[in-house]
């Protein structure tokens, strides 16, 4: 039983959505509308939160009941599930969420019961822990690689393909010099922006 796989941390939280309406609109409905408006890719809010590999939110309106002889199963509240894979630890990540995208997390979790607001960072960490469901089995496709490692490697891969195409017909001496310049350029290049590769 572990929330960690290598350096990666798998966070799962389940938060009850406030029952009822504000200005005649259900909170779950407002929440879904808020999520639908969030930008994705390199303009997405999680691109500003260091170490985020993936993140998602989804709303559970009710449980699915299986066919008879299973018993009918229902929830009284709706729930917001948050799932993220990031370069741990949890405390640092929650702190990064609060510092980097306070307006976004407030606009989402403010529809949930018990959310204290980003102006109380320690209370947000307690809230996340209260809502957390531990991971029983966690699996990653590239253990040990941080977000920056993956982004830099993808950049080198793309650049290497270009380099090979451009230097295909160079004589030996020039090829060696070009390779040294290429290596130098790779070392000095900044890490690509999250969401851009």
């Amino acid at each position, binding site marked *: 039983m572990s929330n960690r796989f290598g350096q990666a941390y798998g966070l*799962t939280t389940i938060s009850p959505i406030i029952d009822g309406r504000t200005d005649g609109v259900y909170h779950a409905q407002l929440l879904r509308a808020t999520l639908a408006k969030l930008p994705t890719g390199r303009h997405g*809010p999680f691109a500003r939160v260091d170490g985020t*590999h*993936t993140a998602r939110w989804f709303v559970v309106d009710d449980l699915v009941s299986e*066919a008879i002889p299973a018993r009918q199963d229902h929830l009284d509240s709706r729930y917001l599930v948050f799932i993220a894979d990031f370069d741990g630890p949890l405390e640092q990540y929650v702190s990064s969420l609060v510092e980097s995208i306070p307006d976004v997390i407030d606009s989402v979790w403010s529809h949930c019961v018990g959310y204290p607001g980003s102006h109380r960072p320690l209370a947000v960490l307690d809230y996340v822990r209260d809502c957390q469901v531990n991971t029983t089995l966690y699996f990653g496709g590239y253990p040990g690689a941080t977000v920056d490692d*993956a982004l830099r*490697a993808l950049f080198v891969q793309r650049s290497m393909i270009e380099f090979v195409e451009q230097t295909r017909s160079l004589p030996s001496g020039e090829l060696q010099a070009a390779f040294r310049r290429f290596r130098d350029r790779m070392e000095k290049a900044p890490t690509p922006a999250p969401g851009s590769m």
Partner: protein
Amino acid sequence: MPNLAGKSYAFNAFTPIGRGRVLLVRLAFLLIRIASFEIVQKLLYKISLVADQQRLVDLSFIHFARWSIVRRRNWPDFGNGQPGDSPVYAYLLFASNFNGQWEQYIDAFSAVVPGGMNLIWNPCVGYPGAKPITRFLGYIRQNQFDTDYYYSAYPNASTTDIRGALDLVAQLESFAKRTQSIAPTQFKQEFDRFLIAVSGDLSTTGPAPWADDPDEPIMPPTPTPRAIAAETTHEPELAAAGASA
């Protein structure tokens, strides 16, 4: 399509665990964890469960995947006048990030690691078994929850792209050190050998054919006959046909 971020698909499913069977699910995960140890992989690779572990890794389309047991008491209750929930069943939450369309993903699971899937989901209510695939697909489809918002730090890269890129970086470092002070003619030979060694790592990233970003082309624009003709001017007949079209 909020289930998609570029090439990556976010999959979520809650399946009810039969009453009194949570321990069986825990035991299944314990066995899977033991089977993943390197020493077990080396010594007991002929055992189906152990082989399934390696096959799962070899499938190479999963970025991250997790299973969590949501106990009846795990649904948080903060009071505030809102009643808490304690459903009839505990639930197995499966959440995954993978490349491709989900039917292909579930299909591959069913075909490649049916034993592992059965071990995990057998204690779940209504689970039909990993084979035949049609009933398994129906079960997964019924219990799937669509994602409302999804972000990936590398939406245009598949798991294979990332693994290849990481391997390329490691091999590039080693090649650079090895060839630091060799003569240019020898460097050329070594570079050609290096390229052959890393050829499998040189995949190109880019938007998926089913890309959801309206700013990104779903497919390269279809070339017009005139463009085709311009590219094939060494074939006069085709060029003439393209120009007249």
